[in-house]
């Protein structure tokens, strides 16, 4: 639907521009269209992922509108080209191709699931364009055309586990790794399992459980978790359960009287947006790990939230971590374009490395040579109001490990896109580019 209205709006705009040029004389208007620079927004506006991605489309429109009010970039106005890949992975690749070859966008902001990112990768490589990917993901990737503004596992999962192991987090000794059955939870749990074993956790103290997408009957699993947690050692659940399945999961926890003080759950995919559709009273005390919370009290964040409320004309719209990632990614792109003096992809990709822009939590995000950014990590506790209250944070910024040092296949790899290395999977053991032996 959104797509149709978009097209109609564009058609109307086009129509009025034509009418204007007819009355004002073609010359004065014609160069205005020439001057705008297009930016692609590749987020699902329909289908299962619409719940998460629609917000990111809105935030991109807001950021672009604001930049234009400040005079655009290099004296040219930006124009958002919004397409709807409809939560359909092959369609992501088609739409990406359309954005790059037909609309000639200078850069794209988009994707949510890892599978959609993998689907568009060949297109961005072939047509040499830039994708800003704003969601926390499983790592194990470092591509020249992609900038990863979400967290790698060591910027979210590992610090969360460290926190739970600490005295503050409750000295957790027994771990349930529960996830939805797809690539992000599987890879993250593989990394976490290796990390926990390295920390001396015995295999019998780790329980791994996968559930299908949209799981709604959690009775057996929650009672298993309860049983696993009654072995006399402090137990915690590390949840990579995908957005939608979380509501029934937490409901079942509440129904079976598992309180956060008994078995805390730390979730990597539950944000303010997901909590907005939930009765949060039974969840108080359960944890989430992100690089941004709406509740973070800084002037930058307050200004951002105010702008967001004004833009959406809804004082209740929440903000979340991937929105901050787009905020950072967009500002970094603007800065890199200004630094390079051009909108062309190659110079901008080179210029992006080393660019540093403010994040919303009072610090700076720097684009590193591995195309990931530096981030602070926050552990938040779900409050009765549906907001996260920070209970712990890393003392400084964390640099992403795109290749996990805890996995056999990737521990020798690094990514560095500066010349002379210019390689996303340099094997330090073999001394050459090209991944694991």
């Amino acid at each position, binding site marked *: *639907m*959104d797509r149709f209205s978009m097209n109609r709006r564009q058609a109307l705009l086009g129509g009025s521009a034509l009418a204007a040029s007819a009355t004002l004389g073609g010359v004065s208007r014609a160069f205005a269209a020439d001057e705008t620079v297009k930016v692609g927004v590749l987020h699902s506006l*329909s289908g*299962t992922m*619409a*719940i998460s991605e*629609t917000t990111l489309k809105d935030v991109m429109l807001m950021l672009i509108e604001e930049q234009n009010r400040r005079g655009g970039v290099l004296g040219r106005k930006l124009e958002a080209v919004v397409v709807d890949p409809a939560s359909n992975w092959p369609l992501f690749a088609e739409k990406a191709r359309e954005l790059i070859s037909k609309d000639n966008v200078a850069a794209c902001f988009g994707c949510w699931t890892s599978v959609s990112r993998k689907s568009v990768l060949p297109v961005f490589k072939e047509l040499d364009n830039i994708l800003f990917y704003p969601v926390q993901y499983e790592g194990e990737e470092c591509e020249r055309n992609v900038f990863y503004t979400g967290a790698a596992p060591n910027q979210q999962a590992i610090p969360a586990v460290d926190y739970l192991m600490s*005295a*503050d*987090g*409750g*000295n957790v000794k027994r771990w349930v790794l529960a996830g939805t*059955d797809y690539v992000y939870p599987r890879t993250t749990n593989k990394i976490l399992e290796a990390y926990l074993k390295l920390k001396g956790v015995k295999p019998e103290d780790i329980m791994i*459980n*996968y*559930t*299908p997408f*949209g*799981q*709604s*009957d959690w*009775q*057996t*699993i929650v*009672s*298993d978790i309860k*049983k696993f947690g*009654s*072995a*006399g*050692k*402090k137990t915690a659940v590390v949840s990579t359960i995908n957005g*939608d399945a979380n*509501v*029934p999961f937490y*409901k*079942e926890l*509440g*129904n*079976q*009287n598992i309180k*956060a*003080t008994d078995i*805390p759950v730390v979730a990597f995919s539950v944000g303010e*947006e*997901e909590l*907005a*559709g*939930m*009765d949060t009273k039974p969840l108080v*005390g359960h944890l989430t790990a992100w690089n941004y919370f709406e509740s973070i009290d800084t002037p930058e964040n307050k200004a951002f939230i105010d702008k967001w409320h004004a833009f959406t004309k809804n004082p209740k719209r929440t903000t979340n971590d991937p929105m901050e990632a787009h905020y950072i990614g967009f500002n970094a792109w603007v800065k890199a374009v200004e630094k390079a003096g051009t909108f062309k992809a190659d110079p901008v990709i080179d210029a992006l490395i080393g660019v540093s822009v403010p994040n919303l939590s009072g610090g700076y995000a720097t684009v590193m040579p591995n195309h990931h950014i530096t981030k602070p990590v926050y552990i938040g*506790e779900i*409050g*009765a109001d549906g907001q996260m*209250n920070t*209970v*712990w944070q890393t003392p400084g910024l964390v640099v992403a490990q795109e290749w996990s040092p805890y996995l056999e296949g990737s521990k020798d790899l690094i990514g560095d896109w500066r010349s002379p290395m210019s390689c996303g999977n340099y094997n330090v053991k073999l001394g050459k580019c090209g991944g694991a032996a």
Partner: protein
Amino acid sequence: MPRKRMPSTRIVAALLALLAGIGAGLGAARAAPVDDALAHFAADKFPETDVGIDALVASGAPTAPAVLGALSDGRLFFDPGSRKVYVVDAAGTLDDAATGAKAADVTQGGLKKVRLNNAIRSKIAAAVGGLDLVSPDRTKRLAAADTAFAAHDAKARGAVEAALAKEEDPAIKAMLVQARAAIVAASGTGPEAERLDAIATLKARGDGDALNLVDQAGAAPDASPAVKAAAASAAAAIRFTLAVWQALQNAWYGLSLGSVLLLAAIGLAITFGVMGIINMAHGEMVMIGAYTTYVVQQALASSALGGASLLVAVPAAFLVAGAVGIAIERLIIRHLYGRPLETLLATWGVSLILQQLVRTVFGADNRPVAAPAFMAGSFHVGGLEITAGRMWIVVFTVGVFAALQIVLRATPFGLRMRAVTQNRRMASAMGISTGRIDALAFGLGSGIAGIAGVALSQIDNVSPNLGQSYIIDSFMVVVFGGVGNLWGTLVAALSLGVADKFLEPFAGAVLAKIAILVFIVLFIQKRPRGLFALRGRAVEA
């Protein structure tokens, strides 16, 4: 655990001393330590808050219990400037935490909340819980005894025994005896007779916690052969009891899953089963029912009927989903009778349109549907844990199934519908308007799907995708049960639910689902008409 509990018992002792102190009128003389203790809360750091709790309890301030209660509820605030601490009481007004007096000149705007984490929460709960062992309130004492059992901290033994000596309520007394047994078993020390006694008590309790403790008692380094033997036999007995209860628990989970499957499929059993229409938009009827529940709940939120919004939602969902169903039948499906492939594609299209329509009207995010109080929480029947919400859904499903049977068997409409199903031309010749019956039957199936949506809004996300997650399962149930047979649908739903839940502990949720699907594919090869085959229009087609 035991290491962490240590300070908590000190708190208990100190709180008891504090109560005695208040009794003796000594509380007021200790104002200064209170201020020192409260200053820790104003530091806005967890370790400081932790120290503050100990200091507060040790200070013997009369306001200490109220302050701790406020802290655990998130009602404790501090002024970052003056570093004074305030309690927000039930009425929403601010009290000075040190004196308990009203602080009329302070507003909440400039105050910051004293932050909590789970470690602090546990600490407060242990402190307050220990005090509750001698509380005049029966439920508090019972909860405190339960906590003492779960913590089984050797340092709390004195408090437990003191409470046991005074306790008169048999239920609480039994719980305290178990708590003492747990302490003995966990400590792995003490005379042999006491240990054997503890093992016997735990064996009688017979749950997972007891099993752990019995194992600990048997594994104690100085355990005598008699203790070891008693522990081993008790552990074996508990394991057996647990296995039996586990099987019953799985059966209950299966029944509960089966009832959800039945509820989702029963409408389809009419539209697909009886009428032979492959209705891919069936899931969206469920979704419309769930959204109707949401709208009804929002509309009634402030009225007197607010508590009964689910009851109001049942007929509303039936009417809304039924009306949508009739509209679909009249506008689209009626032109496609006898062309199953076109029907499938057309209803698939309808399903996408309905999803996107709801997404446009209500937004893509989940809508919250609150659960009424009687559907929250869980209760125990022996070793079974039954969640109230699931139980009511089972009851509700039985009700819907019975009502549908009555409509089909005992009403003129049901008679006509069966007549049309069995022999359309004959029924038509007898003066039955078959077109009207078709529309009404499709409306009935859709309406029942809408009712299912009311129940599913309690256990699943009310989102535009709600229906998609049930459509495959629904077809599976109807095909397995035998097209056109309601009893077949019932048997199929329950047996699939139970099979799934018995497989899940061994195979995991993903493999269990796959195994069920493979089984059904094989079964359909053998018996293409499902469990109970019926004759009717579906057979003729």
